[in-house]
């Protein structure tokens, strides 16, 4: 299942809607890394609220996305990790070190706007 990627002002928002296979995650990674350049985005939000499992592959792929996007000159934030998922990740020893996380989409946008110095409310009016 392909993850829809929305452009919101200077940011890309990837909103995961259902369980993802490994191939879907890799596809998401490649799409984000490509689009962040094509759309000249300043930040990426990956919303994982709908993910009921974050195993080692999903965690590593999200980390890869963050670091690849950072090498492209933009910032990524993972939002919406659910309490049960966070509990399991800690039990597994999966840390997402170096990867910014935020509670939800709103907090994610606030995080990115602080990072790139533009006020959050401007996200709708800024194009390209």
């Amino acid at each position, binding site marked *: 299942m392909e993850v829809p990627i929305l452009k919101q002002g200077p940011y890309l928002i990837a909103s995961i809607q259902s369980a993802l296979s490994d191939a879907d995650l890799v596809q998401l990674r490649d799409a984000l890394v490509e689009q962040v350049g094509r759309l000249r985005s300043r930040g990426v939000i990956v919303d994982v609220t709908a993910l009921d*499992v974050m195993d080692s592959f999903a965690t590593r792929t999200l980390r890869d996305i963050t670091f690849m996007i950072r090498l492209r000159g933009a910032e990524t934030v993972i939002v919406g990790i659910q309490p049960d998922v966070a509990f399991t990740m800690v039990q*597994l*020893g999966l840390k997402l070190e170096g990867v910014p996380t935020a509670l939800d989409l709103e907090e994610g946008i606030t995080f990115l706007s602080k990072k790139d110095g533009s006020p959050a409310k401007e996200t709708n009016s800024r194009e390209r």
Partner: protein
Amino acid sequence: MGALPRKRTLVNGERNPVEAAVPARSPIGNTRDRVLEEIAVHINGDTDIVAARQKGRVLAGTLGFSSSELTLIATAISELARNIVLYAKQGEIVLRVLERGEQRGIMVRAGDQGPGIPDVRRALQGGFSTSRSLGLGLPGVRRLMDEFEIESRVGYGTTVTARKWKR
């Protein structure tokens, strides 16, 4: 709580006996357990990983596990199924509802006829992996579940059995 089985690890690999928790010749598994239900999921690619963990979550859900326990179980199944895809290409995940005395629980058995694990002891240590993973697959699953057994022979394949009991 005192009656719960203690976490144990059995390694019956011919070359790699790690913990002699049971006599080496005793069969993997537990004859005291009564099987109430069984589902087998053939693993042949990464979409089967998702199918296996979803079936496991539903099956464990019938036992009344808490939502965080269901997430632990689903994640453990995901890791075991991925090991099959990564190392053996194909295999099978067997999910069982078990009864042992007064307790009920779920068993996950991941079996394949892949290359086997040359050094089971190392594979069970945190941080070790020979493939693209965080190296937390097996040690992670062992932490998530109550019981964990692995049998692996180079050239013959690997069987991992893990159980979680309803508290």
